């Protein structure tokens, strides 16, 4: 619950593009409010397009407030880098980190809002993955 002092689940946005990661963090932050730790991990270490496990690991550590972290990733090798990142983290942080196979933008927004109301890491990652079926009225 939002009025409890317990830590909230954090969110890491891992994208091949730093601009995409930052933009998604901005959007999800607008929806969820300032209480949730939302960290962008975009681009390769030299700033080009790509992903970097070290950058993602650092973002996970910053996003973790004690309640765990959900990582949303864009394309295949971002997921691979996120998996590598888990091996670089302290075991207790890695153990409470979940990778979402859901979409990047919708998953980050939905996850951030559910995190903001105090959902646990299992519920937040489930919501991030269900975001693949987020309704969009295109009629």
């Amino acid at each position, binding site marked *: *619950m939002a*009025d409890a002092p317990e830590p909230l689940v954090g969110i890491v946005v891992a994208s091949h593009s730093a601009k995409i990661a930052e933009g998604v963090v901005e959007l999800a932050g607008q*929806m969820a*409010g300032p209480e949730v730790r939302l960290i962008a991990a975009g681009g390769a270490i030299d700033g080009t397009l790509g992903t970097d496990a070290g950058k993602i690991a650092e973002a996970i550590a910053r996003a973790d407030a004690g309640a765990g972290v959900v990582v949303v990733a864009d394309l295949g090798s971002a997921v691979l880098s996120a998996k590598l990142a888990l091996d670089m983290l302290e075991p207790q942080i890695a153990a409470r980190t979940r990778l979402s196979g859901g979409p990047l933008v919708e998953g980050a927004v939905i996850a951030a*809002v559910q995190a*903001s*109301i105090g959902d646990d890491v299992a519920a937040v990652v489930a*919501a991030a993955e269900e975001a693949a079926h*987020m309704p969009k*009225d295109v009629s």
Partner: protein
Amino acid sequence: MTQSAELEVRNDVGLHARPAATFVKTAARFKAAITISNLTAGKGPVNAKSLLAVLGCGVASGHRIMVSAEGEDEEAAIAAMRTLADRGFPTDMPQN
């Protein structure tokens, strides 16, 4: 006992994007189990504390919704949801 209120959504966009997030965050302040139904579209009831579920109700501007709460703070929950609807689901609603 369950408390319920039938409300009209009178903002510009219905319960999408930030207004939907505001709705969910307000519902989550209460211990009561809270559901929302879209009476106009015949959808729900669904969990009012799930953004995906609320978005799935497809609530557009002008739709009528039914909000129900069951739990120790159900009366306060319904009062808060009614106030939220009356104000058009503002995104700057204080959270506590």
